[in-house]
C-alpha cells in the first residue's frame, strides 16, 4: 500500500537482514545434516566416512539419550508448572493495591537479569551447600538432617535454580496481561453477583489463557536448551542424572569429539524444538493480523 519508490527502497533495506539470517540458518544446519551422516571424530582427523543413518541409530538407542530425554522433559515440565502456578499467584498479588508496588516489582524481576553462571554458583555454594549453605543451617536449626542437594536430588536442584530464574518472566508477563484486563469487565462480573473465586475462574483465568500459552511456548524453547546451569554445577552428573539433551550433545561434541553423533543429536533437538515453534509461530502470527 505504498508507492513503487518506497517498495523498491524497502526491499533494499530488508536485504541485509534477510541474507544474513538465511546464511546463519542454512549453512550451519546444512553442515549439521552433512556431519550427521558421517563417522567423524575430531580425534581421528582424516578418517571421516559416510555411514548413512548410523549416527541417528546410535544416538537414539544410546541409553544416555533416553536418560537425557527423560531429564529434559522432567526439567522443562517441572519448571513450567512451578513458574506458571507461582507466576499466576505472584501476578495476582502484585495486581492488588500494594504500598511500594514498584519496589516489590523490582525485587521480583531481579533474578531474570542475573547471568546463568552466577545464579547457578550462588545457589550451589551459598544456599545449597551441604555444610555451609544457608539451607543446611536452616534445616539443622530446625533439628533436621541437612540435605546434600546436588548429591541426593541433583535434578531437583537444577529445577529449583532454573525455576527461580524464570519465575520473574512468567510473573511479569502475566502481570502485564492482568493489568490489561478491562476493569469494567470485572465490575460487570461483580454486578452479576460473581464472588472473588468465580471472577478469577470465569473472567481472569480465561483472559490469561493466551499469555499463559505464550509463556509456556517461550519458556519451553529456552528450557529445552538449559546449559550453563548444568555446566557449572553438576557437569551432567552424578552419572547421567542431570544430563539433558543439550548437555549430552555438548559432551559428545566437545568432550568426546564425536562430531557425527553430536550432529545427529543436534538434529533431533532441532526437530523437537520445531514442533513447539510451530505452535508459537501460529499464535504470534494470528496476533499479527489483528
Amino acid at each position, binding site marked *: 500500500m505504498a508507492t513503487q519508490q518506497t517498495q523498491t527502497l524497502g526491499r533494499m533495506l*530488508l536485504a541485509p537482514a534477510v541474507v544474513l539470517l538465511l546464511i546463519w540458518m542454512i549453512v550451519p544446519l546444512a553442515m549439521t545434516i552433512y556431519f550427521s551422516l558421517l563417522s567423524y571424530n575430531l580425534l581421528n582427523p582424516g578418517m571421516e566416512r559416510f555411514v548413512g543413518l548410523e549416527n541417528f541409530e546410535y544416538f537414539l538407542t544410546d541409553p544416555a539419550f533416553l536418560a537425557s530425554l527423560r531429564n529434559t522433559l522432567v526439567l522443562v515440565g517441572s519448571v513450567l508448572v512451578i513458574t506458571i502456578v507461582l507466576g499466576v499467584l505472584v501476578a495476582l498479588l502484585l495486581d492488588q493495591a500494594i504500598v511500594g508496588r514498584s519496589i516489590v516489582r*523490582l525485587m521480583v524481576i531481579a533474578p531474570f*537479569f*542475573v547471568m546463568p*553462571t552466577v545464579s547457578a554458583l550462588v545457589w550451589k555454594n551459598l544456599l545449597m551447600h551441604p555444610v555451609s549453605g544457608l539451607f543446611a543451617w536452616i534445616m539443622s536449626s530446625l533439628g533436621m538432617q541437612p540435605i546434600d542437594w546436588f548429591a541426593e536430588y541433583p535434578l531437583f536442584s537444577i529445577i529449583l535454580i532454573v525455576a527461580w530464574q524464570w519465575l520473574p518472566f512468567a510473573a*511479569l508477563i502475566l502481570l502485564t496481561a492482568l493489568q490489561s484486563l478491562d476493569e469494567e469487565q470485572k465490575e460487570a462480573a461483580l454486578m452479576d453477583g460473581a464472588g472473588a473465586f468465580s471472577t478469577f475462574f470465569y473472567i481472569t483465568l480465561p483472559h490469561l489463557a493466551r499469555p499463559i500459552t505464550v509463556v509456556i511456548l517461550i519458556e519451553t524453547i529456552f528450557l529445552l536448551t538449559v546449559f550453563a546451569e548444568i555446566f557449572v554445577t553438576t557437569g551432567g552428573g552424578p552419572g547421567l542424572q542431570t544430563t539433558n539433551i543439550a548437555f549430552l550433545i555438548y559432551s559428545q561434541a566437545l568432550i568426546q569429539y564425536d562430531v557425527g553423533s553430536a550432529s545427529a543429536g543436534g538434529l533431533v533437538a*532441532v526437530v523437537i524444538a520445531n514442533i513447539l515453534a510451530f505452535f508459537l509461530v501460529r499464535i504470534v502470527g494470528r496476533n499479527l493480523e489483528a
Partner: protein
Amino acid sequence: MARRTSTTRTLVTTLAAWLVGFVIFFPILWMILASFKTELEAFSTPPSFLFFHWTLENYATVQERSDYLHHAMNSLLIAGGSTLIALLIAVPAAWSMAFAPTRRTKDLLLWMLSTKMLPPVGVLVPIYLIFRDFGLLDSRFGLIAVLCLGNLPIVVWMLFTYFKEIPKDILEAARMDGATIGKELIHVLTPMAVPGIASTLLLNFILAWNEAFWTLNLSTSEAAPLTVFIASYSSPEGLFWAKLSAASTLAIAPILILGWFSQRQLVRGLTFGAVK
C-alpha cells in the same frame, strides 16, 4: 477508576507482596552480603546476617586480579558490539517491514522468529568447526558475530513492533511537506522511534551480556566475557565464596540496573509483541 479497598486488606496484601518479593530477591541479597564478608565468615555456620566484619577486601582482590577487568571489558565489547551491529542491520529492515510492507512481510517476520527458535545445540558442531578452522575460537570478533546473528531476529521484531506504532499518516504528512525519504528518516521517524530503539538496545545488551551457551563453548580466556569468568569459580579446588560473590555482584550490578529500567519493554520484547 480506583477500586475501593479497605485499609486492612491493603495492609495484608502489602505485607504478603513484600514477603514474596523478599524471598525471590533473597539469593541476590545473600550474595551481595557475602561479598562483604571475609572468606571465613562467608563459609561459617551459623551464618551471620548483618553483624559480621564488613570488608571491601574481596572487591579489592577481584579488582587487583587484572583478569576481572579484562573479562568485564570483553563482556562490554561483546554485548555492546553485537547489539550495535544488530541494530544497524535491523533498523532498515524493520523500517521496511513496518512502512513498506509487501504480501510476504508477515511470512518473513515469522520466518525470522523461527530462526530464533533453532536450538543453539543443533548447530553447535558446525559453528565450533567453522570457528576452529577460521581461527575464531576465543576471539571477540567471533562471539560478536554469533551473538549478533542470534539476537538479530529479536532486534528486528522489537523494532518492528515499535515502528508499527508510529502512525503511517505522520510519515505521509512529511512526504507531503516535501521531505525526501532521507529527511523523513532523520527529522520525523528517528526522533519518534528513539524510545523504542533505546529499549531495544537495552534489552538486547542485557540478553547478550548474560548469554551463556556460545560464550561458554566458544571462548576460554582471551575473549572470555564475565559469564565464562564466573564459571571458572565452579572448579572445586579452594573455596572462594566471598570473592565469587564480589565478582558476581560486579558482574550483575550494571545489568540489574539497566534491567530495572527496561522492565516495561521486556515483556514486549520477549513475547514478540504477543503480550502487551
